[in-house]
């Protein structure tokens, strides 16, 4: 959804990270899904770089 249509529609949020932000949005009646996030590739920087490259290739 590009910026040209964002302002006309209600916000709907996916939250990754601090759970307090998801709870605050929910308290404000904003649709929100909180991801049970873990460091990708087990937090291994080498594996993460590899995974990022694979995703980029998928994209192009």
């Amino acid at each position, binding site marked *: 959804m590009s910026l040209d249509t964002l302002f006309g529609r209600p916000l709907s949020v996916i939250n990754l990270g601090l759970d307090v932000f998801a709870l605050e949005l929910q308290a404000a009646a904003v649709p929100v899904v909180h991801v049970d996030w873990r460091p990708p590739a087990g937090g291994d920087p080498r594996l993460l770089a590899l995974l*990022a490259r694979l995703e980029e290739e998928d994209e192009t």
Partner: protein
Amino acid sequence: MPVRALVWPSFYQDSIALMRVAEALRALPGVREAAALLGTPANHELLASAGLSTADAKGAGPSDLILAVDAESDAMAAAALEAAKGLFAARREALEAAVRVLPRTLDSALSHLPDANLVAISVPGAYAKFEALRALRRGLHVFLFSDNVPLADEVELKQLAVRRRLLCMGPDCGTAYLNGVGLGFANVVPRGRIGCVAASGTGLQAVASHLAAAGEGISHGIGVGGRDLSAAVGGAMTFLALEALAADKATEVIVLISKPPAGAVVPRLEAALGAVGKPVVACSPGIRPRADGRVRWVATLEDAAEAAVATVRGVRWVRRDFSDPQAIRARLARLRPGAGRRGTGVLGLYTGGTLAHEARLLLEPLVGPVAPDLTILDLGADEFTVGRPHPMLDPEARAQRVREAGGSATVGAILLDLVLGRAAHSDPARPLASAIRDARAAAVADGRSLVVVASVVGTASDPQGLPGQVAALEAAGAEVLPSNAQAARFAALMVRPDLAASLLGEAP
């Protein structure tokens, strides 16, 4: 000194959850120190320097949780570690009950919420680009709260965002408002006709709160992160946000809350502001206040809000040093030091970096640029938060500094900010008020006069409630002013009464 540690492999918890559990453990009987950290290299160093490292803990990796406790006895340490298990389980249960589904990936979350249009990301900075790229590639706007994101990552993210006409708000974006929804650390403010583009979260909070107090509201407040106007990023998000607000029918006036732009970006920024087609109020520390066609440059956040209110109402704006000079004169008379000595220095102890910077710029020409005349500390800066939560979440570290300042003969005025809003501490005035009482009592016992000057960023609708927080500070003897700029000027008057002539237009 029995130190015990426990490692839970692949048990990720966010930094606020870890802080709350560590706090709870420190409050248990017999516990001298406690830590709950992931096993990153930096955290291993912190554990070692705190004397909390053990052979078990040393083996933990970056996605493993380390719980470490220093207690009076082995039994007490073991009991604390057992209690920690219960605390994490209780947090998890509360979260599951509140949010119902907890998918493990962005794609799985999208299947639960197919009309999602924004991803809020507050994961550790090392992973921020990976997750934000995923979101942008799926056509989703990004609110990127994470800090410690490399500049090259920011450039890459924003270039992709601009190509796809998506917002990448951040990194290091503390606050935003979209379609009436506050994101991150946001004050509860009404919707309205003033749009903001903000390089500073607390700057946006301050402007939004001033607008709310004046009876105006925010159409949208787009955060861009503190480095957007650097040469490397080139204002990518600032320009996109200005364009979006220019086209937005609900926005009548635009406020730009900026950091000092890189020289190479200035001509493009001025051109973009001129091309907006709506009145713009631009607040950039250090830039000379002036009117430039439809663009008015102002020096403080309060001036930005006041000028925007006047512009949207079609009335003339007159800049003032104090909103109620008469009340200031009355306060000055009440606070004359009398027989008590008063130090000649101002000590600013801030939780908001932008507010600290604003105070420094206002005070340097008034009381002098260097300690002991002027010391302004941004306690949210990296050097004060290594291994500690941000002072907006954990007010204790600042409270301790306020107490210590009570013993200093050179400090005549302590200058404070207090930032309210969603996701901030639930009652930040309480620990601060207690410290203010202690500091003032210490000064009185020493035959000195010490004035504590504060301003509060917040609204009556915030969870903490502005009136109650102000009342708590005033009950402790603090002088609470309506803005950070006025508080800074008032602090100057406390140590330099001769400035009354220029600041209040009268002889001291």
